[in-house]
């Protein structure tokens, strides 16, 4: 905690920064000569009853975004843990192989990975856009999960493992009872960050014609010419989903860390 005198300066500083940002935004919007009309988005959100009602294209796209991101996170985590285990072994060949894999997927643009998966691998193996999309997201996500897994284990206190060994626990018991409960908690914040960023990256799936949220937004813009309204609304949807994911992560983190307090 900063002392009392300093905290006044901190408050002042934050007001100052917020003030400047607010000024820039308000001034920009004030000078923007634009007639806002969000009503055109209505049918994209919920179909009018004349068209049979039900969720509109944006909500359908949102669902596809959520579904494919979830699949990517699920398969990515499973694969990531496998590669993470390989990264932490002392066996040279598998370690190097895992390292190359992680480096390739972390250090190349997802967009390029997606093109390769869709146009090259997808053509050869006759994959649909959504399969190629989920495949790319899973592999991309797994590289990050593997690295998070490795980092967490590498930082684990060696002394506790010694204590567990000295107690006579088997390696499997040590992994399950001593390492896993603590490592899981330590992995959570970076994992949630990775998942949130994957949900945002899923917008790239629009380039392989998957009708997810971003693709639907592009379509709507070409029809309505209302790009500001559309993209602001789409951003709001991403914001809501990602805020829910991060809050859930924070909640889990809090619950798991209770045991590390007094």
């Amino acid at each position, binding site marked *: 905690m900063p002392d009392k005198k300093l905290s006044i300066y901190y408050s002042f500083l934050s007001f100052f920064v917020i003030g400047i940002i607010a000024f820039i935004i308000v001034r920009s919007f004030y000078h923007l000569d634009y007639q806002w009309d969000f009503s055109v988005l209505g049918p994209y959100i919920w179909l009018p009853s004349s068209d049979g009602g039900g969720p509109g294209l944006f909500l359908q796209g949102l669902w596809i975004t959520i579904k494919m991101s979830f699949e990517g996170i699920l398969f990515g985590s499973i694969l990531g843990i496998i590669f993470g285990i390989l990264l932490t072994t002392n066996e040279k060949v598998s370690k190097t192989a895992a390292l190359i894999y992680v480096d390739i997927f972390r250090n190349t643009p997802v967009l390029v990975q997606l093109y390769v998966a869709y146009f090259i691998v997808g053509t050869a193996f006759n994959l649909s856009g959504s399969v190629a999309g989920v495949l790319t997201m899973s592999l991309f996500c797994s590289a990050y999960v593997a690295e998070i897994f490795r980092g967490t284990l590498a930082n684990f*206190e060696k*002394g*506790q493992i*010694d*204590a*567990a*060994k*000295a*107690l*006579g*626990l*088997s390696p499997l*018991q040590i992994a399950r*009872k*001593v390492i896993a*409960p*603590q490592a899981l*908690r330590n992995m959570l914040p970076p994992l949630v960050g990775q998942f949130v960023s994957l949900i945002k990256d899923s917008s790239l799936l629009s380039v392989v014609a998957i009708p997810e949220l971003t693709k639907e937004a592009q379509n709507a813009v070409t029809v309505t010419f209302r790009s500001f309204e559309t993209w602001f609304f789409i951003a709001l949807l991403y914001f809501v989903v990602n805020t829910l994911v991060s809050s859930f992560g924070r909640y889990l983190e809090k619950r798991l860390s209770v*045991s*590390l*307090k*007094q």
Partner: protein
Amino acid sequence: MSQEVVVSLKEVNKIFRTPKTEHHVLKGINFEVKQGEVVALIGPSGSGKSTCLRTINALETITSGDVEVCGINYRNSKKSLHMIRRNTGMIFQRFELFPHMTAIENVALGPNLVLGKSKDESYKMAKDLLARVGLANHMDKFPKGLSGGQQQRVAIARALAINPKILLCDEPTSALDPELVDEVVDILVDIAATGMTMIVVTHELYFAQKVSQRTMFLENGYIVEQGDTKKMFAAPKTERLQSFLKRITHQ
């Protein structure tokens, strides 16, 4: 007191190798500890005393030589390594309690998983042991909620929970605030009085004197001098032990 040898080290060498350097930590260590004996290992830091202790329950591998605990040599098989660790309990300088478990869970883990006792039985054992180290009122606290001395007492209870024949203590009081040292020392002295075989690495001479019958002085990977604790401290034979004792009592 039985004269059975429970720990024996024969010509133990330990060399730490990194690609660039070689560090010869233990240079042909020989000693035996009989059942019920309490032996102190003293020496300056870097003398190899902790490494020496850790070879006994195979937390440290050895480069050459033989280590036998209760007649078991862990080079034989994985099972013998497990048996050695079942026969030895260990306490550490930094306690090394599992922070995600309460005091009682820390202590009950060994009986439950290693001795294969039921949950109820393990908790009962843990309760008795924690009461024995004076922590009956702190059983449901997590390590972070306990003082250093209390944490080390939980660690002692955890080490005793698997009914070891030998208790290995790796500088059990060095991480404690001075006013907390006594509560831990008293308990270790109590345990020694029950006939437990103990090997204690320490650089607190008063603790070594209070708890041990025999002392070994290690320096540079060699056992330089050994003998009866009281005689050795009163009249050190070698010059090295003399200067070590002088330095440490001056602190």
